[in-house]
């Protein structure tokens, strides 16, 4: 699993990747009560806002950690947004993306680097 400074995670399998928000981000948001998932087929450029997670207090954009095409979205989340809090880095995945530029993965942090980054916040 790899991570961004905006607190998204990427789990690569072959030429696709699951993406979601990290446990740190889910905890910082608090109780997630609404998730807007992306449409399948949507083309993402790294850094695009592609989903929205909302708590009682606020709406937060989720930014694409990699470029590619959305090939699946987690349809469970609109009905069970609390999954983002319960299992942010597994069942709370948001989208599956077919990578268009796998070299972007090299720019992401591994878990040790991400945790070191969290310590600086």
């Amino acid at each position: 699993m790899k991570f961004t400074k905006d607190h998204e995670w990427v789990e690569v399998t072959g030429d696709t990747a699951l993406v979601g928000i990290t446990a740190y981000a889910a905890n910082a948001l608090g109780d997630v009560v609404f998730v807007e998932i992306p449409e399948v087929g949507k083309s993402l450029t790294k850094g695009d806002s592609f989903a929205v997670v909302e708590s009682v207090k606020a709406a937060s954009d989720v930014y694409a950690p990699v470029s590619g095409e959305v090939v699946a979205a987690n349809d469970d989340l609109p009905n069970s947004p609390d999954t983002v809090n319960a299992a942010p880095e597994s069942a709370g995945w948001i989208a599956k993306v077919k990578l268009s530029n796998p070299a972007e993965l090299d720019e992401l942090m591994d878990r040790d680097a991400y945790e070191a980054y969290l310590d600086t916040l």
Partner: protein
Amino acid sequence: MPDTQDTLKFTPLYDRHVALGARVVPFAGYNMPVQYEGVLGEHKWTRESCGLFDVSHMGQARLTGAGAIATLEALTPTDFAVLNPGKQKYSLLLDDNSGILDDWMVSRPEDDGFFLVVNAACKDQDFAIIAGNLKPDTNFDVLADRALLALQGPKAKDVMQAFCPAACDLYFMECGTFELLGETAFVSRSGYTGEDGFEISFPAARVGELWDQLLTHPSVKPIGLGARDSLRMEAGMPLYGHEMDASYTLAEANLGFAMSKSRVARGDIKGFDRLKDQLDGKLDRVRVALKILSGPPAREGAKIVAKDGGVLGVVTSGGPSPSLGYSIAMGYVPPAEAAIGTQLDVEVRGKPYPAEIVSLPFVANGYHRKPKA
């Protein structure tokens, strides 16, 4: 103006909030707890049991002397001569054009004198205006050495029974002075959640002890400003800087209950020419309540649009309602679009979602009202 960490102030309970695991954020110039365990749980706890809120950032002041009534009436649309000792009234600080500069709770704990609670973000302005407009024989004291707690929820009365039983004789919008921990507490039966509850003004130097003791009651949990906001929204209560500011009047904001008929008859409300036209129906916009029928929450700034796409107004507060399970909002639309049941759309991230005008409050209140004689 953005606050910097250096200039933020602290309430006397700051260390206790941190020790309780609160997430502390800048609010109105203070480091304030936005949540402890989580907004959803805190919201529901307050609706079902009793929430304890630190609202010591709010401004507190006393106005006494023969000129106190005249001083208050010159600044507000409210008749304070008829406010009997032991009663409390909601009022508004107006500018020269009847624009709303703040909203206040004004209490009359005893014959000579009024007790004011004003918004934290407005208190410097408000107190300067009052001090600059005192009528003869009026004393004005800012009570910077007092903290303010709110106990809110259906079990607030049980908690008060355990600590200050005499205050349980108060009905909604009544007030008095009581002995609590050997100190003089000023207590009103009111709040900002729509629930039964009390607000307790208490010496800042000893409020930590009071806070600790109240938290020992099994019905009490500390509640942050996050739930305070969702609770007041469900109760349909306006928040200064959102539903109100100097560009709005009480007629637009649907706050006519802050205005006394005797003041309208006298015509001596600041900016009355503008207000009178609006009261006669010449209104461009009015505050409404919206139920969001599907889609994401519509928050402050979301456009309210007609079904034909024309922009009607804007959402001033909105979000998920933890009690109702759907999203709610308040905002402004022209009176012709304000009828209960009107169907319209709210625009969130460029897309329209259906909404309906509903009546306020969203959630029925639980006030301990005095039975009608």
